[in-house]
């Protein structure tokens, strides 16, 4: 009797507790949810305001683009139905597809497109190039956009169909009119998923729900191009600051998809029969050792070239990535396997010989000036790159000082052009995703120190070749100019290229329909 009463009491408390605390039992019948561990925390929601990849991926969830890159790296129409070009190549007319709607139900109009492209054109490097050739951009009616160029530009579709940051996402006009250096506060898009702002917990959870009114294209999916079919009702991004916990959550079935497991965890995940580990990004990422061209000793091209000769890609990739199935050497500045990849001038990078580097350095008259390498210890791959460079350069005869710091410190310090004693620097390492360095227009290849990337390389010939590439109209011409750009990059020793590596994705076997692409997309994916 006593036991029975006690049992009933426990049951009553157990049942009453959720009700007492306002708990509810939610019906989740038939709702399909894809639970994702993204590669980073979604800190901000404006993919034009920042170049962060996670904000770009968020953009792909909720926005759509006029054109999109397919798996052959060619721009294909996405929101655009038809388009025409005048004979002189100066007037481009785009007609939008039927049925395009924003998440608030309003139709997507030409005016939205004009405002969105204009905002993007003020922030994105390629957008700035395009708009420096645009005489006018107008929407004569709701479905038409006319771009008139002041001079021929060979990369119109490549620009508005670029796959990586900053992507020219189409926003409502009222949103796109926000100052490009201020964050947007209205997250209405027209993409296949809707951002649930109320459920956003910065640093932890982002929730997207399927946009029922999205009209996908009929073509099969191909990288960013083709029909974007949302096959789940909800996608939840749950950020894990700890890679081991993320791995455990995937193995326990609490998560379906892990976007970027650390390379050293891949073998453990692969040994689990319920989990697939594979490379989903055909281009991978390219390791990059950047010199500061303004400060000695790397203000001398011969010294930079000597340093490059000491860099052996295999050593970097083995130290930072490990398993050889996830990396390969690549001496082209464009990712190997892409149309513009070539080997012009790349002998210097392929040298990988400290002895040769030492001899070359001896001929430069290097005076032993200290080389400060910034080492971001909170990013294991870059920390390993820094250590290998320090070792190689020391062996080659450089006087090297490694300075450990976190990535946030590095990003602010690398913007300084001051001497080393006043906070400046000589070298740092990073990587580019392959899609970002697929052609000479990448900011990594700039030879203009005023508008270029950190390190501030300067070479008029290089800039001339890049400008010519932007005007080129034929594939043969583009290839020739891309090779010329590469030849100049190696000639001036702009940066060291540390090889191509591929961070695998890991997912449970109930996930199907992953898209092979340099960017992780979540349409076309279903969960059983």
């Amino acid at each position: 009797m006593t036991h029975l009463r006690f049992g009933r009491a426990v049951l009553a408390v157990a049942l009453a507790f959720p009700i007492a605390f306002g708990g509810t039992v939610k019906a989740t019948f038939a709702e399909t949810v894809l639970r994702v561990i993204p590669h980073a925390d979604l800190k901000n929601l404006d993919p034009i305001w920042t170049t962060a990849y996670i904000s770009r991926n968020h953009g792909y969830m909720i926005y759509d683009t006029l054109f999109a890159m397919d798996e052959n790296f060619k721009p294909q129409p996405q929101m655009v139905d038809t388009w025409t070009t005048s004979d002189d190549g100066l007037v481009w007319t785009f007609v939008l597809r039927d049925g395009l709607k924003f998440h608030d139900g309003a139709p997507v109009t030409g005016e939205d497109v004009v405002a969105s492209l204009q905002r993007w054109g003020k922030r994105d490097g390629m957008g700035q190039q395009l708009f420096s050739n645009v005489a006018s951009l107008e929407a004569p009616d709701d479905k038409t956009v006319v771009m008139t160029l002041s001079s021929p530009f060979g990369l119109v579709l490549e620009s508005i169909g670029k796959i990586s940051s900053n992507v020219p996402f189409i926003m409502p006009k009222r949103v796109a009119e926000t100052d490009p250096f201020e964050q947007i506060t209205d997250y209405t898009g027209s993409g296949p998923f809707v951002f649930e702002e109320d459920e956003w917990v910065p640093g932890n959870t982002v929730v997207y729900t399927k946009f029922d009114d999205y009209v996908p294209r009929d073509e099969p999916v191909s990288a960013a191009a083709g029909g974007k079919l949302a096959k789940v009702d909800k996608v939840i991004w749950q950020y894990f600051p700890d890679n081991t916990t993320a791995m455990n959550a995937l193995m326990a079935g609490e998560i379906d998809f892990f976007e970027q497991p650390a390379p050293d965890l891949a073998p453990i995940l692969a040994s689990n029969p319920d989990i697939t580990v594979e490379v989903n990004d055909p281009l991978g990422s390219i390791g990059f050792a950047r010199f500061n061209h303004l400060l000695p000793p790397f203000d001398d091209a011969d010294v930079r070239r000597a340093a490059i000769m000491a860099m052996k890609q295999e050593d970097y990739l083995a130290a930072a990535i490990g398993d050889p199935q996830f990396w390969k050497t690549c001496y082209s500045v464009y990712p190997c396997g892409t149309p513009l990849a070539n080997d012009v001038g790349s002998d210097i990078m392929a040298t990988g010989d400290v002895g040769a580097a030492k001899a070359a350095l001896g001929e430069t008259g290097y005076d032993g000036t200290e080389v400060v390498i910034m080492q971001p210890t909170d990013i294991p791959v870059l920390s390993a790159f820094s250590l290998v460079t320090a070792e190689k350069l020391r062996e080659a005869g450089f006087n090297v000082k490694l300075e450990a710091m976190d990535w946030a410190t590095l990003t602010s310090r690398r913007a300084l052009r001051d001497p080393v004693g006043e906070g400046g620097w000589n070298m740092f390492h990073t990587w580019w995703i392959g899609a970002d360095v697929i052609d000479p227009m990448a900011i990594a290849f700039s030879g203009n120190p005023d508008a270029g990337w950190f390190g501030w390389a300067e070479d008029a010939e290089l800039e001339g070749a890049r400008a010519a590439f932007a005007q080129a109209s034929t594939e043969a011409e583009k290839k020739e100019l891309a090779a010329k750009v590469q030849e100049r990059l190696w000639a001036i020793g702009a940066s060291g290229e540390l090889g191509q590596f591929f961070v695998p994705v890991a997912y449970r076997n109930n996930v199907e329909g992953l898209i092979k692409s340099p960017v992780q997309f979540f349409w076309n994916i279903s969960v059983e």
Partner: protein
Amino acid sequence: MLAYVLKRVLMTVPVMIVVALFVFLLLRLAPGDPAAVIAGDYATAEDVARIREQLGLSDPIIVQFFNWTWSLMQGDLGTSIFSNKPVTELILQRIEPTMLLALTTILFSIAIAVPLGTIAAFRSGSWIDRVVMLFSVGGFSVPVFVLGYILIYLFSLTLKVLPVQGYRSPFEHGLGPFLSHITLPSVTLSVIFIALIARMTRASVIEVLEEDYIRTARAKGQSEFKVLMRHALRNAAVPIVTVVGIGIALLIGGVVVTESVYNIPGLGRLVLDAVLARDYPIIQGLILFFSFIYILLNLLIDLTYTFLDPRIRY
């Protein structure tokens, strides 16, 4: 008593002002630039400069400090540079998991540690005492993250009885999911506090057991249980409460690691993410908030003494 409480509460104001000034200057002197983090890896130096300008980070430090304190006086902790959300909203969003994790940890720790320490003291020198002390040394020595991974491996991956990660609110999801998600983090975090409190309890009780009034109580024929509970433990309570108070303060540091290992969206994670991104308003707001909690905790502990020991008066 009331006058004392009021005096202590008023004293928090100058302390908070000093903390605010210190935190603000420390952050501005530390290397790192949120504008550079925001702009992303592929932005140019010019983009970074424009963003810095837009965020008001190019203003002289004194102007930035004045703007911040002016907002603070109006009850506004500022807005996150990254997420554009008010810091107050972010703290409120995260406070529940941290507070409940801290509460369950402290309750669990006290429930285990005080009896353990008392028994160890009572049986001082016996095998029970040695086991408790061994546990205390071990608990103090094992890093939180190591213990966390071991527990996850045992209970989540091998036995599959508890989830690996996450947090479920008792108010939204009910008690069952809350308990299943909070158990491992609480146990992980408790071990160090059990070790700390058990050692202090043992030491205090041993000291008290040697007092004359204990001998008197025994001479009067009181049972050992009564001697222990009524006389020894009550008199040993003040240092134990002090240690519990210090423990709660330490706990706030401990939750940073525990929340990361168990992926709990609490204040510890918020601090960590904000520091890594140099999100100044969040760091400033949180440190002020934590300072306030510390001050309140100290006040609470001081007041608790009067209930435990009638000889203490303010």
